[in-house]
């Protein structure tokens, strides 16, 4: 199948490449993500047990706790953050973690939002790469 490029909206600019982990289910990083291993630990989540460190993580939005940002920042410090995150619509929590990581550690991660249609497409993709300007190449 030919590669397909989706026009995403860059919330935080950057490029990233990695395995794709995608689920149509919100995630709270507090209680849902282990900053020490980069694994998803929310047992009720579709991606539970999977390692998102270095991956392109696609979730519709965060949910629950306002501590999601702190957990994600810690995962950047420990080198266990996703390489990039794709959401459906703007999720401020994810953007904030990346912006503060850039300030503190000089390394954030790209955050891109897709519309409903684009997000539905990434759910069915085998792999994804975040390109400059928020474009996402699927394969």
């Amino acid at each position: 199948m030919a590669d397909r490029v989706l026009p995403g909206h860059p919330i935080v600019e950057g490029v990233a490449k990695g395995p794709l982990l995608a689920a149509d289910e919100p995630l709270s990083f507090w209680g849902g993500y282990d900053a020490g291993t980069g694994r998803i630990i929310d047992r009720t989540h579709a991606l539970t047990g999977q390692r998102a460190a270095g991956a392109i993580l696609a979730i519709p939005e965060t949910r629950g706790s306002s501590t999601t940002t702190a957990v994600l920042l810690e995962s950047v410090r420990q080198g266990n953050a996703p390489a990039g995150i794709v959401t459906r619509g703007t999720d401020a929590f994810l953007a904030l973690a990346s912006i503060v990581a850039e300030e503190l550690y000089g390394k954030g991660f790209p955050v891109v939002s897709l519309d409903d249609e684009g997000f539905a497409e990434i759910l069915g993709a085998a792999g994804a790469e975040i390109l400059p300007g928020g474009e996402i190449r699927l394969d």
Partner: protein
Amino acid sequence: MPLTLESRDRAVLEGAKGEGAALAMRILVRMAEVQGATRLIDISGAHIDSSLYMGDATLEYAERLAAGGAAVVVPTTLNVAGVDAHGWQEWAVPSEWASKARRQMDAYEAMGCKPTWTCAPYQTEQRPGFGEQIAWGESSAIVFANSVLGARTERYPDLLDICAAITGRVPAIGLHLDENRAGQLHVRLHGIPEAVQEAEDFPSVLGHWLGGVARSRIPVLDGLVTIPNEDELKALGAAMASSGAVALFHWIGTTPEAPSLDAAFQGRSPEETVEVALDDLQRARAELTSSEGEDLDLVVLGSPHFSLEEFRALAPLLKGRRRHPGVRLLVTCGRGVKLIAQQAGLLEPLLEFGAEVTVDTCILTTPMLPSEIGSLMTNSAKYAHYTPSLLDRRVVFGTLSDCVESAVEGRVRRDDGPWGIAHG
């Protein structure tokens, strides 16, 4: 339209108030741009969830701001910390964790925040008034401030709340603005018996179910027979903000922006109407229990932090009784409420029962539980929701009296009350 900054904001950005304030303003402005704000507005208070110690990153962030001379410019309370500053030695908290969490507490106090160390600042502190613009962190406090008090706050994440307190400014977006506070989801009860609606755990169960359905939308509760008290509203909101991302709910005839259905929806039509039936709630209630067995090591109460009224309800249940030697009973609360409860004579029955009180933090935010504690029981939907993943332990959800009976007997006791009868 791009973001327009006032000259006072630009001055802070350029370092007029020091490096710490400039860092806070830089982050705030970038977030305002991300969120599509065209201007910043003033706030008159803040509640800081960034106080939670989540590892070296949160400590480094706090110390970077404090070392840069940052100070809050509005009255600011502090959420729970990573450690009970004076009682941690009685539990299994590693001393390195305690000392780093303590350093983080010091950094926030150095910035001029009030050392309240509670997720329920509205229990003891001056409350924001109706319509007041504030920046609050802590999901359960946010939903309480918006829904029950009618104050206006967005869902401030950790790391950003302190930037708002240091600059006194927030992006003019979301729940700060009238037009975004209208209900979106009309929630109607379908054939739920009054006895179930009056059950002590009904608000927690309803909230747990509703969070999953509403996600980040604004639900409007309609047609309930009860008039909830503040602790029930606290439990309802905290449950929705755990299973979902609800930051504001309306309850017709109860919450201040919902005198009528029309007012709650600001004259618009709901985006969606959902009916909740008894089996939806039976399922939600069952989800809050992850353990089928009767094993029990710890009963824990107080998420969000236990209120004075809850101490008042608990004390007579414990009077003249004693916990089973194999079960500990822990209450987590703010240091302010503990002091008042003590002065009101409400702590003596607890201590005679063999119960313990932890302040400043909770079981989810400090590694206090020793490894031999594997099975928990609680009346809090928030504790029940997070215990399996955050603590990797089993949990049973029950009422306050279930919790006490279980602590006395040393094994899980549950009275299904109206839930069982309704099921039958």
